[in-house]
Structure formats: C-alpha cells, structure tokens
C-alpha cells in the first residue's frame, strides 16, 4: 500500500486552492516592483509577444482530477477527494472531435485517468479513430492499487496505448518523499509488469516513457544525461527498461507553489526560472500546438492554464463547439508561471523543447 503524505489544497481549504489567489501571487511582489520582468515583457524583448497558437498537433484531455496519490508538488491538486470527473456525455463530445481532428497525438491525463469509470470505454472508442500517437499518462501505482486495475498493462497493449509515467528518481527515498511512502516499490512493480507484456523493450512498438520532475525547488538537469542515469540505475537495480525520459520543470502553481511559499523558496525559484529563460524555447512551448480539454469540456491553452482557470482566448470555449481553424492563431493566455516552460532547454509534457 502507498501512504498519502498530504491532502489536496481543496480539501485543506487553503486559499491557494483558488486560482485567483495563485495568479495574484504570480503578478505581485518581485514582478510588480520590476525586480523581475513579467513573462509578457520578456518574450517581447525578442518580438515573440503575443504568443500565438500554430497548427494543432496535440489534443490533451483531462478526464478528471481524482487520483489515488496526493503528490506533494502536483500541479493539478489531484487526490482521492477530488470529485471532478469527466462524464460519458462530455467524452462523447470529445470523441467527435478526436475523429475529425488534424492532431497526430491524443494525450489522456488526470488525476489518475484510469479512475474515471468510463476510462476503458473511452480508450476503446478513441483508439478506433486512427490517431498516430495515443498517450495515457499513468502514475504507475494505480496499476497495483486495486485488483480491478491489475490488467491495465494488457489493456494498454491491446489498444496500442503509449504509456507515459512519472518517476521522480531512481532511488526509493527521493521518490517516496515527493509522491508518498511505498510509491517507489509499487512503481517498480508496475514498470516490471509493463516490461513483461512488452512495454519499453528496446525494439518494441509498445512505447513506455518516463517523466522526471525535480523533487524540490530546483530545475531539472540535462534530459539526455538524466535519461542515461535513470536507464543505468533502473536496469542494474531492477532489470527495468524504458524508452525515453522527459525532464519536466515544475511550474509555480498549485501544490508546488504552496510548497515554494511554505519552504521560503518562492523568490529564489522565480529568479532561477527567469535567469534560465531561453528565448529559443519560446517558439516551441506546448501551448503553440496543443489544446487542453478539462473534465467539464472547456478548452485551455495547456493543462497549467486549465488549473489556473485561464480559458482560451477564442470564440470557441467548449468542446461542444470545437473548431480547429478558429482556434488556430489565437493569442495564448500567459502569466509568470509560463517561465517554467522556457527555462533552460524548455519544458513541455513531451520534455525538453529547445
């Protein structure tokens, strides 16, 4: 069993559960008094303001904020107590879009997407649409959380799903500190089971990628070097194989923002992000080719904006009125959290971008 470390900000009734409060923090203090430039000003320096959406490539759907874990730094503020779950009706609307989209990637996320009661039906239907890359973001422990999930590796295989899973470190201590006691052992077991059905093997078409995000107030190291270290350690210690590692920067929102403030790291972290700002990463930030759909069908530039309740700047607001041409070229809604996407080699749900 895993032991959850904490409760969601919503459950704790923290003021930071309100996106308005988070946005205030991100606009006040060091950004208000000019100590650091706002993101708009910074991208303006290289004439990249306003940031505009290009052709859609990735359709990311968040099927609900419920999760079996309560990771310390979750940007979704997910947990067992979150009741926001996508209904079958909204899934139907998504399926219409999936059938007609020009996007090559479909990316299901959560919470733990597998906890949505209609998850399997949705995957079965969506997999018929012929999308090239069909990703499910699985937190791994869900596969071992309950008997009813034990067959997930087989289920993923049957539908040729590309599994992307979080792994903060190759050591037990660092992983459990961030994600809860027992998470490391369960994740290792789940990875071994995914390997056993063919996921992550060198020549296998069954793709298994890992996501690494730092366990504290620091930025991720070089993605390729980290991948090498992860591969070596997981192979030597547990015989585990996987394809690629995506190094993702923690964005200063939700529970990670709460952690930064509580540990008195907020200002230093924002300085780190701004100092590591890389103008070359701006052109490829994921909002430029992604649409994020929330559990209730509303459209956002990315999963982070969804959590900050910053809807797309477009006439089209909901999946029921979806129109890819109208969404193209829209101005992206930005704030200072965006610095998380442009630090160093850049960061997206697919890892580095620059």
């Amino acid at each position, binding site marked *: 069993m895993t032991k959850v470390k904490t409760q969601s900000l919503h459950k704790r009734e923290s003021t930071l559960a309100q996106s308005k409060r988070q946005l205030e923090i991100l606009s006040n203090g060091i950004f208000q008094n000019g100590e650091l430039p706002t993101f708009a000003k910074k991208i303006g320096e290289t004439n990249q303001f306003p940031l505009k959406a290009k052709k859609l490539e990735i359709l990311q759907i968040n099927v609900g904020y419920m999760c079996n874990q309560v990771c310390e730094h979750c940007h979704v503020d997910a947990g067992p107590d979150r009741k926001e779950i996508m209904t079958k009706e909204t899934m139907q609307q998504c399926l219409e879009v999936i059938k007609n989209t020009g996007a090559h990637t479909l990316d299901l996320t959560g919470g733990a997407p597998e906890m949505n009661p209609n998850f399997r039906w949705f995957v079965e239907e969506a997999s018929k649409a012929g999308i090239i890359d069909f990703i499910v973001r699985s937190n791994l422990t869900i596969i071992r959380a309950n008997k009813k999930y034990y067959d997930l590796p087989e289920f993923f295989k049957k539908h040729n799903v590309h599994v992307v899973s979080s792994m903060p470190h190759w050591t037990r201590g*660092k992983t459990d500190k961030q994600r809860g006691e027992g998470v490391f052992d369960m994740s290792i077991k789940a990875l071994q089971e995914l390997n056993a059905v063919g996921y992550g093997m060198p020549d296998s078409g069954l793709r298994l990628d890992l996501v690494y995000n*730092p*366990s504290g107030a*620091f930025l991720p190291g070089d993605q390729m070097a980290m991948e090498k270290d*992860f591969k070596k350690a997981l192979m030597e210690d547990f015989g585990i194989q996987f394809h690629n590692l995506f190094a993702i920067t923690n964005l200063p929102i939700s529970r990670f923002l709460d952690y930064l403030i509580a540990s008195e790291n907020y200002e230093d972290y924002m300085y780190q992000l701004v100092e590591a700002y890389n103008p070359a990463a701006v052109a490829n930030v994921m909002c430029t080719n992604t649409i994020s759909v929330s559990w209730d069908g509303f459209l956002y530039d990315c999963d982070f904006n969804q959590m900050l309740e910053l809807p797309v700047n477009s006439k089209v607001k909901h999946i029921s009125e979806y129109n890819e041409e109208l969404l193209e070229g829209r101005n992206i809604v930005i704030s200072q959290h965006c610095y998380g996407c442009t630090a160093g080699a850049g960061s997206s749900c697919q890892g580095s971008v620059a």
Partner: protein
Amino acid sequence: MQKTYYDPADLRKFGKITEWSEELGNKFFEYYGKVFEEGALTAREKSLIALAVAHTEQCPYCIDAYTKDGLQRGVTKEEMMEAIHVGAAIKSGATLVHGVQMMNKVNKLDG
C-alpha cells in the same frame, strides 16, 4: 551599511563582475563554462568535484551553487556527503602530512 560580509543574493550578481573589467571577466566566464562541459569527465563528476572543492575553499556561494547543481543532476545526498568527505580527507591529510616536516625539524634541531 551592510551587516554581513556574505549575502546569498550576491551570488546572482556574480555576472556583474564583467562590468568593471569586461575583457577579463568575459574570459573568466568563458573558461569557467568550458571547464564544466562534458569532457573526459562527465558534467556530473565535475559537479561533485566542484562541490568538494567548494567545501575545502569554504565558499558559501559555491556551496549553495553546487548543492543545487548536484540536485539538478540527480546526485543523491549520500553522494554529496561522500564527495565532501573526500575534500575533508585531503584537507586533514594535507595538514597531517606536514607533521613530517615538523618531525624532520625536531630531529635536526634536537635529534
């Protein structure tokens, strides 16, 4: 007046040393950057060496910087502590090995 000799925020201003001597400052940073690139040693190994030296030099800025650098590279706290022990062992060894000089001198003067 500033009350302490060291201010953590000064580390952020390190780059400004070029303002008062541009050529030398730039040459230093160019050299520094090159040293830490992946070479015969990995960048990770170099980071651990830097951490150990930061301690033997007792530079608070470098300690902060290379602790964070290590975390970014996935270095564990056990690895960091072992690296510092290497530095400490060399420091103490370097102190003690001079004991031989003391012994030589005693033997010469009072042997």
